[in-house]
C-alpha cells in the first residue's frame, strides 16, 4: 500500500525531523500581516511531516526489533558528535503521535491565536522539530540538543500567548527543566570520558563489554539522567511546574505539552536511563515505583478537588504518567508494551481534552467548573466529543485507553501484585474525578443564563477533532498493528535487561 522507498535511498528520518524547520524558515520571509498565508504554509508543512512519518512507518520492518532506517553522518568530528538518527519500536509510535497531533493543533489555533501569528507558527514548528528529533536521536549530544532546543519555543509559547500568570509559569517551566537537563549534560560528559563516545549503540556495547561502570558510578549517573526525565514526566514530587504551565499555556501549548512533551520524560527513561545503567535501575526500582504510585494516587486526589478544568486535567496527567513510569520499571513484555501504548493513548485523549477546553474557553472565557453545568443541551455535538475523550481517558473498553491500561496493569500485577493493586486504585479514582467533572460540566440543570447561547462546534472544529476520535476507536478496537510495531523491540529490550 505504501511504496517502498529503500531503492530511492531517501533520508526519511531527516525529512521527518527537518520539514517543520524548513517550513519555519520559509515563514521568516512571509509578510507578518498575511495571517492566512502564514497559517496555510505552516499547516501544509505539518501535513507534509505527517506524510513523511507515514512513509517512515511504511518502510519500517515490524518483524525486527533493532534500530532501523538509520542515518549517520559526521557532524562535529572534533568533539566526537555525530548526526545519528534511527527509529525502533519504542520511538516509532511517539514520532507518529507527534506528527499526527501537530496539524490539528495548528488548525485549532486559527481562531485562538490572532496576535503575532508569524512568531507563533515559527515557534511551534521549531518545537516540532525538537520533539521529533529527540525521539529519533541516537547520539547523546544530538539528543541533548533537541531536548533543550524544545525549551525555548515552549517557553515563548507559554510566555507570549499564555494567560494572566504566564510569565511566572513560563519561568518555572524553564528553570525546572533546565536544572534536570544540565545535570544530565554533566552525566553525558562523564560517560564520554569513561567510554570515549557519544553514540548510543556503541556506548551500550562498550558499557557492557570493555568499559563497565562500577555501581557507585551507575548510581549517580542514573540519578542525573532520571532526575532530568522525572522532572519532564513529571514524576511526583517534581510535578509542581506542570499545573502552572498547563493552566497558563494557550490551548495549543497545553496540547503539545501534554500530548507530546511529557512523553519525552518517559521515553528518556525507557531509552537512556534504564538501558545505560541497568544495575542502578534495578537497585532503585522500588523507590521509583513507589514514587510513581504516590504520583498516581496523589495526582488523582488533586484532580478530584480542582475547580479549574485545565488544572484538573493537568493533575490527571500526573496520575496517568505515573502509570507509565511504574510500568517502565517493571521489565516484562506486557507492562512495557502497555507503557508505550499508554504514552500514545494519553497523548490522544489528553490532547483532545485540552483542545476541547480551548474551544469552550474561546466562547465563554472561563474554565471554572462552577460557571458551567447543563450545557449538553446547548452544545450536543461538543458534549458527545467531550464524552468520548473523557471515556477514552478513563479507559473504557472499546476505546484506546483500555488496551494500554489493561496490558500495563496486567504486567505490573504479574510481577508485584501489591503495586498492581495500589495502581488500580488510580483507575477507580480516575473514573471518579473524570465523571464528576463531566457531571458538573455538561449535565445537571442549566443555571447560568450566559450559557444559553454558546454556539456548538463549527466545521473546522469537527474536522480537527474527528481524527482524534477515529484514532481512539481504531486503537481501542483493533490495536494489533500498533502492538506489532512495538513488540519485537520490547522483546529484545526485556531480554537485554534480563542479562
Amino acid at each position, binding site marked *: 500500500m505504501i511504496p517502498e522507498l529503500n531503492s530511492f535511498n531517501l533520508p526519511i528520518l531527516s525529512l521527518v525531523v527537518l520539514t517543520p524547520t524548513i517550513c519555519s524558515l520559509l515563514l521568516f520571509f512571509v509578510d507578518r500581516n498575511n495571517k492566512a498565508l502564514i497559517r496555510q504554509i505552516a499547516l501544509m508543512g505539518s501535513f507534509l511531516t505527517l506524510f513523511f512519518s507515514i512513509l517512515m512507518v511504511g518502510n519500517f520492518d515490524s518483524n525486527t526489533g533493532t534500530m532501523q532506517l538509520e542515518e549517520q553522518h559526521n*557532524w*562535529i*568530528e*572534533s*568533539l566526537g558528535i555525530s548526526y545519528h538518527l534511527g527509529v525502533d519500536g519504542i520511538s516509532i509510535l511517539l514520532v507518529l503521535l507527534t506528527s499526527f497531533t501537530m496539524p490539528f493543533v495548528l488548525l485549532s489555533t486559527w481562531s485562538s491565536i490572532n496576535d503575532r501569528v508569524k*512568531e507563533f507558527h515559527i515557534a511551534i514548528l521549531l518545537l516540532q522539530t525538537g520533539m521529533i528529533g529527540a525521539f529519533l536521536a541516537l547520539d547523546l*549530544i544530538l539528543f*541533548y*540538543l533537541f531536548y*533543550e*532546543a524544545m*525549551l*525555548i519555543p515552549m*517557553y*515563548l509559547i507559554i*510566555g*507570549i500567548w499564555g494567560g494572566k500568570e*504566564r*510569565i511566572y509559569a*513560563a*519561568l518555572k517551566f*524553564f*528553570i525546572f527543566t*533546565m*536544572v534536570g537537563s*544540565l*545535570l544530565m*549534560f*554533566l552525566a553525558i*560528559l*562523564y560517560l*564520554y*570520558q569513561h567510554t570515549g563516545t557519544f553514540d548510543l549503540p556503541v556506548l551500550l556495547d562498550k558499557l557492557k563489554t570493555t568499559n563497565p561502570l562500577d555501581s557507585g558510578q551507575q548510581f549517580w549517573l542514573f540519578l542525573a539522567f532520571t532526575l532530568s526525565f522525572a522532572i519532564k514526566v513529571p514524576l511526583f514530587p517534581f510535578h509542581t511546574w506542570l499545573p502552572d504551565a498547563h493552566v497558563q499555556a494557550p490551548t495549543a501549548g497545553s496540547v503539545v505539552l501534554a500530548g507530546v512533551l511529557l512523553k519525552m520524560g518517559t521515553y528518556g527513561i525507557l531509552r537512556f536511563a534504564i538501558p545505560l545503567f541497568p544495575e542502578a535501575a534495578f537497585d532503585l526500582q522500588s523507590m521509583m515505583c513507589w514514587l510513581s504510585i504516590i504520583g498516581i494516587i496523589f495526582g488523582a486526589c488533586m484532580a478530584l478537588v480542582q475547580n479549574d478544568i485545565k488544572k484538573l486535567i493537568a493533575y490527571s496527567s500526573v496520575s496517568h504518567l505515573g502509570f507509565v513510569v511504574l510500568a517502565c520499571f517493571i521489565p516484562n513484555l506486557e507492562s512495557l508494551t502497555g507503557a508505550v501504548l499508554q504514552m500514545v493513548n494519553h497523548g490522544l485523549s489528553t490532547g483532545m481534552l485540552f483542545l476541547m477546553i480551548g474551544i469552550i474557553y474561546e466562547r465563554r472565557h472561563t474554565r471554572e467548573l462552577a460557571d458551567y453545568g447543563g450545557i449538553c443541551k446547548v452544545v450536543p455535538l461538543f458534549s458527545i466529543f467531550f464524552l468520548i475523550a473523557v471515556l477514552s481517558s478513563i479507559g473504557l473498553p472499546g476505546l484506546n485507553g483500555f488496551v494500554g491500561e489493561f496490558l500495563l496493569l496486567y504486567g505490573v500485577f504479574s510481577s508485584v501484585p501489591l503495586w498492581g493493586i495500589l495502581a488500580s486504585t488510580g483507575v477507580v479514582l480516575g473514573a471518579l474525578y473524570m465523571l464528576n467533572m463531566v457531571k458538573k460540566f455538561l449535565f445537571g440543570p442549566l443555571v447560568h443564563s450566559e450559557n444559553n447561547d454558546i454556539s456548538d462546534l463549527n466545521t473546522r472544529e469537527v474536522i480537527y477533532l474527528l481524527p482524534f476520535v477515529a484514532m481512539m476507536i481504531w486503537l481501542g478496537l483493533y490495536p494489533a498493528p500498533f502492538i506489532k510495531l512495538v513488540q519485537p523491540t520490547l522483546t529484545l529490550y526485556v531480554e537485554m535487561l534480563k542479562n
Partner: protein
Amino acid sequence: MELTISRAEILAILPAGMVFITGLMQLFVDLGKSSTDTRSEKTHLAMIGVTGILLGFSALFIQGVESSAGALYAGAMTDDLFGRMGAGVILVAALFCTLMSGGYLASSGNNRAEFHSLICFSAGAMVLLCQATNLISIFVAIETLSLAVYVLAGYFKNNRSASEGAFKYFVIGAFSSGFLLLGMAFIYGTSGGSISLADIAASNAHADPLFAVGTLLMIIGFAFKVGAVPFHSWVPDVYQAAPALSVGWMAVAVKSASFFAFCRFLLFAEGGQALTQILSAIAVITMLLGNLAALNQTSLKRMMAYSGIAHSGYLLIPLVLAVSGAGASAGASIPFYLFGYAATTLAAFGVIAAISVVTDRDDVNDLDGLARTRPLLATGFTIALISLAGIPLTAGFIGKLMIFRDAVEGGFLFLALVGIIGSIISVYYYLRPVVAMWFREPRSSFDLIPASWGVQFTVAICGFATIALGLFPNWLVDLSKMSVSAILG
C-alpha cells in the same frame, strides 16, 4: 649592534601596526573639525576604521595556519596561530565597535575622533598582548591597552559617574599592574634572569617556592584584569558608570586579550599542586558569586558585568588544567569560547547602547516590548542571551561543552559540576530581558529606540554567527585545538 628586521618580524607586527596607523589617521582626519560637528555620524571615520581593521585582519591570513615564526624581536613576541586567533577575536570586536560607535556617539552628542582612534589604539595593544612572549612585552602591552581603555571608560567627561568610574578603573588597574610587575620580578629573579617565557619554562626554577609566589602574584594581576573573584569588585561599578559601548569593548576585547596572555603564560609556567588548588578555588567562587550576584541586578550593565565575571570563572577552568600540567590540550577551549563570547556580548551591548541613548538608563524594564518595536534587535539579543546561558544550538553551548568536557577528562569533575550549577543559576537572570522583550508590551510610543544601521548590522551578524557557530563549529574547534598545541611547539 646592527638592527635588522626579518620578513617574519614585519609580518608579525603588521596586524597591530595597521590598526595603530588607522587610529592615527582617524585623529588626523578629524583634526580641525569644529566641535559643533559632534552630532553628525561621521561615517568617514567608520569607513577608515573598517578599512584599516579589515586590512589588519587580512594580514592574519598571510602566514599559513600551521606556521609559527618562533621567537621574534629577540624573543619579545611571536607570530603563531594562538596569537593570530586572539588577534582575530579582538579585530572582529574592534570592527563591530567601530561600526556601532558613529551612531551611538552622534546621538549622545559627543562624536569625536578620539573614541574611534582609542578603540584602534587599544586594539593594536591587545593584538600585541596576544603575541607577547616575554614578561616585558606582556607588561608593556597591558599598560598600553589599559591607558586607552581608561580614557574610553571616562569618555563622557561631563558625566560625573562616568568620570568616577574611569578613575576607579584607573586606580584598580594601576594596583593590579603592581601585582603583575612584582610577580614578574620574582620570576625574573628565581629563573636566573630570564624574561622570555620559553627560557623561564626551560630553567629549573619551578621547584623554587619564590617562583611559585611570583606566579601567584601574576595570577592575581591577571585575575584583576579579567575580573575574577575576589578581585572583581571594580567590574560592576565601572561597567555601570562607563558609556555602554566602551563597556562592550572592555567586556569583549580586554577580557579576551587578557585571557589569551594569561593562558600563554600559564602554559609555560606550570604551577604544581598548591597553585592548582588556589586557581581552582578562584574559579569556583568566581562562577558561583558571579552568577549569584547577577540574579538581583535590574541594571542591564550590572547584570552583564556579573555575567562577565561568571564567564571569567568558566574560562578559568581550562587555566586550572593548564596550571595542573595537563599539557597543551588544556587551553584548547579558550579561543573558541572567546569567539563565541565576543559575538554574544557585542550583540548584547549593541542593544544596551541603543536603549541607553534614549532612556539614559539601562534598566531591564527599558526593554519592555522590544520584540514589537524592534524585532531584529530583540531577536539578536535573545540569541545572545540564550548563548550566554549555554543553551544548545549556539556558540555558547559548544564553548561550555568543550570546557566541561576537558574538565571531566582532566579529573576536575568538581569544577564541571560547579560550572553546571552556575549555568543553572544563570538561566534565571538571562531570561529576564527575554521576558521584558517578548512577554511585555511597549510602555509608550515614545520609547521607540532609534537603532543606527551600525547597531542593527552588528546585532544581526552577531546573532547569525552565534547560531552558525553552534551548528557548524567544527572548523573553529579544530583551529582552537591546533593553536593551543602549537604554543609549546
